């Protein structure tokens, strides 16, 4: 199985964009069959009057857990889904070895309704529904399918890796700036070379207790 994951080990099969194919909506499939992956992403923020800004971040995913780590400030997030479907969240501060835990009802109490598909696929489900295929492209030695929406004001382009169920590229234009997120490296979780900092001994604070600590 790992043979499919290490993109540099795969020989490019010579696919090219195929403009005359029928346009299809993005099909994601069952959320309980997500492959376990570890990804390094780079997000680029492009604004008309400013220099481009680049952020590297890690993304680890299993069926019921997603963790991210922002390399710039060494903070991160952990999302977990319980057997009953409740979604919990934690902010991770690696430098301080500290986590703030939000239970499902804490998230609700602050008006947040987490969407598990959006968290695991990095795609807002409402946006995902509007995407139609627009050809194929070669990326990391494998076939990525390009999808676009038809929104002139807020255009979204993605390149979707169907086997890994993850976008290799997401480009969005919002409020006059462009956000481009691209995969830098992609691994199966068990073969991951990304440095994963264990949070096992971190101090946990309940979100509900924050108010009494200020």
């Amino acid at each position: 199985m790992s043979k499919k994951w290490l993109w540099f080990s795969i020989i490019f099969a010579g696919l090219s964009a195929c403009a005359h194919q029928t346009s299809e909506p993005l099909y994601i499939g069952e959320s309980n069959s997500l492959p376990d992956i570890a990804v390094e992403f780079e997000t680029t923020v492009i604004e008309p009057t400013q220099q481009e800004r680049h952020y590297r971040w890690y993304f680890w995913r299993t069926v019921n857990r997603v963790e991210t780590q922002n390399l710039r400030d060494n903070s991160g997030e952990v999302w977990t889904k319980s057997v009953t479907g409740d979604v919990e969240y934690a902010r991770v501060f690696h430098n301080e070895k500290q986590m703030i835990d939000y239970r499902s009802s804490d998230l609700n109490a602050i008006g947040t309704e987490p969407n598990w598909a959006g968290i695991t696929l990095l795609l807002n489900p409402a946006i995902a529904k509007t995407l139609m295929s627009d050809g194929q492209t070669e990326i990391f030695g494998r076939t990525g399918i390009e999808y676009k929406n038809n929104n002139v004001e807020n255009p979204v382009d993605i390149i979707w890796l169907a086997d890994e169920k993850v976008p290799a590229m997401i480009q969005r234009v919002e409020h006059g700036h462009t956000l481009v997120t691209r995969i830098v490296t992609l691994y199966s979780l068990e073969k991951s070379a990304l440095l994963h900092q264990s949070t096992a001994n971190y101090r946990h604070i309940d979100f509900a207790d924050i108010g009494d600590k200020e």
Partner: protein
Amino acid sequence: MCANECKLTAMAVILASSLLTISAVSNAETISENPKFWLDSGKQSLADSEKLKPNENNAKNVILFVGDGMGISTITAARIFEGQSKPNNRGGEENSLSFEKFPYVALSKTYSVNQQTPDSAPTMTAIITGVKTNDGELSVGMAVARQEKNGNVVNANKVKSLLEQAEENGLSTGIVTTARLTHATPAACYAHTSERDWEADADMPTDATVSDIAKQLINFNYGNGLEVAMGGGRSKFLPETINDPEELDKKGSRKDGLNLTQQWLDKYPNAAYVFDKMGFAAIDAKKTDHLLGLFDISHMEYENDREKDTAGEPSLTEMTAKAIDILSKNKKGYVLMVEAGRIDHAHHAGNAYRALSETVELSNAVRKALEKTNPKDTLIVVTADHSHTFTIAGYPQRGNPILGLVKQPGETDFAKDKHGMPYTTLGYANGPGYRGTPNRVDLTLIDTAHPDFLQEAAVPLASETHAAEDVAIFATGSKAHLFHGIQEESYIYQVMAKALKFKVGQ
């Protein structure tokens, strides 16, 4: 041919007219708020007041209810929130929560020794020991520095709680909360420490010799020990090597390897430990003398979310009833502290819906306690430890939904701010509900009564804060008449101790 149709039509007319009659009768029965109504109802209240006689009996039992963060604006809004859910209400404003019908009310000054606006640690210390102290400290005098690590210093400055005195006098004692049992309010009843956050050994500096709060609950050695301790906070009692019985992917948080739930069972005769609703329901109060209930790994669920809990949790009302059943077996009497601990958390989150539904559940628990006790021998006190920055604002018309947008009398549209935006009745002076610059957001099409709606806040803070204004004390039963005027928060202890004939501070 038309016989049947005519009959039906006639029947329909009769039915309709009888419905009209019924509705006319019920309209006739609804109260009309005319001048006579106000004068008559005022007269009745006056007559009731004139009949009031101080209940000079000493109390066999004292039940203290604490709504954590339940300021007066919270009580008013909860009264309307509950009132608007009742059939035939007159707008909801006329409703009374159970404890608002108590005959005696006073105000409590909540400042701590070192802070104008306090937290729950010094406030509950004042309520339950009669001594004001510094913020963050539990049942120790003000000479102790916050986070003092030396256990000898802390022990030398202990101040005795009403529950400790009760045990020494042969009474039974109980603590019920929806927060963690090791959280500040319940902890002040049994623990003495320089830092409220030292709930388990893992929360403490390794060189501190003060005992952690969970351990102090199990090692409570006054009289024959606590009879009832129910709430959340299971992880503080379980070692990090043991999986939580409800959230199986999580573990206890104790690093010292101690399983304090097992110690409870080993320490007491006829003891029980339960962690879910089924276990709670199976407890026979007649056969159980020492009950430990830890119903969540951390705080228990909000009442609004309780049904979704994996293993199920009892309500505050159910825990109160069970506690009274166990404690009232002692002929000498009992002291019970019941905390609605999550009013405070909902306010910190800027979520009025949950703060109000928690307050209504506290009112239900008080009603249950009233049913199960006799005012001749029981003093019931309901108070708050401190307030929040929660406001009821604008000029909404009578019956305007308390969680809704302000609509003034006679208007068809919502009241608008300077930028033409509507605004809610309920809001906060600060907190996460700040919605920013340059203008507020348009709430016209937002369901502001949704349980997950975040009320607006004027100052952006990650968490809404406590507030410093006085809170109310409601009292009924033995010696309740001693609650009057504006008092220091520590006065609450004086009346409870007086009612029980305890020597103060000893």
